[in-house]
């Protein structure tokens, strides 16, 4: 069994009287694809926001890379190799695909503002290196043809792919994907599945993903956590989860 890279332990999160998460614990192994599923409002996105430090939980801890905390600041999470995509695309719409992905390399740049503005010396060298890396991602995601296209002009499925590209640009060790396939048609979903599998396979990136589409999740992930009304109701391989009675009830709807 491979090592655990991320463990969340007893996380509870409430917004006023709304209990978004209640005592949720699970772990994520090195290089696995771990899915978090659940009906609407189950607390999936909240969980992701807790992991990369957007929300501060009232109770519980997160262990990542040997550090155990209540909360990692978002910039700290980024520095520690956590990257994410968003449920609603958060790209710079007026900028080209290339520039958007370049922003994902920002943390890797070491030269100062002045040198960057002058495009001189180390800044120049760095920019060339970063560009080469970004081109590898463009090649990987097969978006060469839209390299120079402003993101706002692209169809939704491609924007999602660009967002994945920006997250990859940070060379993450842990990639958090918030509904990467929401709103896509069948073909776009298949493409996205393939890219997620390829990222996992090629770079060994650990992936935590939230997804609505059950069939996608079951095909894609190694292990699945199921949340319902902020509680964990199941945790295991796709087959185990599929046959779990609580999960079936949660999805088909049973009077609470």
């Amino acid at each position, binding site marked *: 069994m491979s090592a655990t890279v991320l463990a969340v332990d007893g996380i509870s999160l409430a917004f006023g009287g709304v209990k978004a998460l209640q005592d949720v614990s699970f772990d994520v192994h090195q290089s696995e694809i771990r899915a978090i599923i659940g009906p609407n409002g189950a607390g999936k996105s909240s969980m992701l926001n807790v992991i990369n430090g957007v929300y501060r939980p009232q109770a519980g801890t997160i262990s990542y890379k040997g550090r155990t905390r209540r909360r990692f600041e978002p910039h700290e999470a980024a520095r520690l190799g956590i990257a994410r995509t968003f449920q609603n695309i958060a790209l710079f719409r007026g900028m080209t695909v290339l520039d958007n992905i370049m922003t994902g390399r920002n943390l890797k740049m070491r030269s100062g503002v002045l040198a960057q503005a002058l495009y001189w010396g180390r800044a120049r060298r760095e920019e060339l290196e970063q560009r080469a890396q970004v*081109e590898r991602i*463009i*090649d990987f995601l097969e978006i*060469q043809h839209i390299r120079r296209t402003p993101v706002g002009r692209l169809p939704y499925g491609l924007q999602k792919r660009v967002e994945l590209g920006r997250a990859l640009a940070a060379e993450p060790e842990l990639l958090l994907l918030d509904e990467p396939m929401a709103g896509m048609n069948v073909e776009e979903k298949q493409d996205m599945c393939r890219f997620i599998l390829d990222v996992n396979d*090629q770079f060994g990136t650990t992936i935590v993903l939230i997804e609505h589409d059950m069939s996608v999740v079951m095909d894609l992930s190694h292990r699945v956590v199921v949340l319902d009304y902020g509680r964990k109701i199941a945790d295991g391989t796709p087959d185990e989860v599929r046959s779990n009675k609580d999960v079936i009830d949660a999805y088909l709807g049973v009077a609470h």
Partner: protein
Amino acid sequence: MAEPALDTFPRLLLHHAAVRPARPAIREKDLGIWQTWTWAQSLEHVRAIACGLAAQGFRRGDHLAVIGANRPRLYWSMMAAQALGGVPVPLYEDAIASETQFVIDDAGVRFAVAEDQEQVDKLLEVLGECPRLERIYYDDPRGLRHYEQPQLASLERLEALGREAEGRDPGLFEREVAKGRAEDVATILYTSGTTGHPKGVILTHAAMIATGRAYTEFEKLTADEEMLAYLPLAWVGQNLFSYSQSTVAGFCVSCPESAETVMTDLREIGPTYYFAPPRVLEALLTQVTIRMEDASRPKRALYRYFMDVARRVGGRITDGRNVDGGVGFGDRLLYALGDLLVYGPLRNVLGMSRVRVAYTAGEAIGPDLFVFYRSIGINLKQLYGQTETTVYVCVQPDGAVKPDTVGPPLPGVELRVAESGEVLVRSPGLFREYHRDPGATAEAKDAQGFFHTGDAGFLDADGHLKIIDRAKDVGRLADGTLFAPKYIENKLKFFPYIKEAVCFGHEREMACAFVNIDMEAIGNWAEKRNLPYSGYVDLASQPAVIELIRDCIERVNRDLAADAKLANSQIRRFIVLHKELDADDGELTRTRKVRRRHIAEKYATLVDALYSGADHVFVETQMRFEDGRTGTVSADLRIADAKLYSAAAARPAA
């Protein structure tokens, strides 16, 4: 010591590597940057792959399947197979598994080179049914890391094996090349075939090199030409222009980054020598038209004004007949201004600023489409030929281009028109035979060595060949008048709104048509009119769209009415189809020609409805998605009537 004759492709490669070692031979855009390999470097790769193949048991006469897009390593693999006296068999990259299996089986392929995971998957899928297929080498390792099939290895690994093998046995490559003879088989190209299974056309080094040389001399090509290879390698044209001619003349071939980036890559390379089938030229013009419609009013007016000037005098100016063609000084001045303001920038956008020779072939090209390109100063010429003739029969010569012909026969070509109207050809570039099909060979090639093209045509007063249609497709209406469906379909397809058309009328009392809308052009048109639609089926059934198509058809009818022989084939009724005709559903060939007979069978209910007088028809059609699954689409289609014209009404408009 005498120079060895340059009569095989590997010998030509050795020659270029010796004469112009540092000149570019092939380029590929990778990670956004053009990577170049010189002739000397190309030779090293070919040598390594050849020695690797030899070490893996590839023997003289063996067939090497090559499947994928235009990639340097795939070109080198073809050359390597030829160096060993083997035969490269390029396959269409978008062919489905069963088509691939047929060719691999028919050609008895033992070794295959695949571009990437997609193609490897396809080959692995047919592995069970193709017991002779032993080894598969791939270029792009992406996604293949966990494949454990013993048959599979990367080309990089093959090259490493080759370098080892050569270390043990230096001179292996040169010895093998020395064994080659001009009459050896250079390649087998499978024709897409509008009927039945594809046939493997066997072309020798002698035939391909003769053709390459003849074209090089005819068009005065040099080693400095630039060409972008973006069409399927399995198609004879791409094979001739980018592989044969580049190897004969020593010019550089560039491979685009991906199928979607071709336009950008074209602009960056700025080819001097260009080939495009009519459908590509059509798509380009559609794009230009759409973008001009979106331009600001003054720009639109400028464009319209100068395109009128170009239509009037541009063709003659491109022909170089300013003076004897009777182009006045004023028009020349206007055209020069237009060149500065419109044609030059337009050529630049199309990536054709440096084009010296551009060809089109594969299908008859609409005269208006053809004239458009020539009028803006692009030396676009039609050529005529088939896989069996290594596309070497006729070309329009510089300065004497007649849009409705394909030009006079090329030097070395003997051309005859049989009594049936079929065009017969004999030339040094002719194929040897069909692979394992003596029956078909005997049918296509007669005792005197003439190839029966299957095309109907005639030589005009100037000795230029005019092709009307496929000989077997030229039909007669019930009243006995001529019916040339392709001729009409091509006229229809010239409208940007019509993507595909299929005409019926043979042995019937009237001509009718199926029409496929062009989603991009009509989608844009509908958007402008605030016409909401949910998808292809919905858009195709909108009354306004049917009106639009009717207008196109009536304009074609007016054209047809002007020609006494064709006036009776005016289209009376038509259906706008609910689904795009697709090669995956067997409705088009891989080179996107309509398979009329197959369509007539598949949509028999629609054809019957056209001739029954009904005004609508319900239809349910199976279609195949790209991943191989099938589904059905159904729709209630309207059958619309079109106005007919009398010869008198046509004349003032024409």
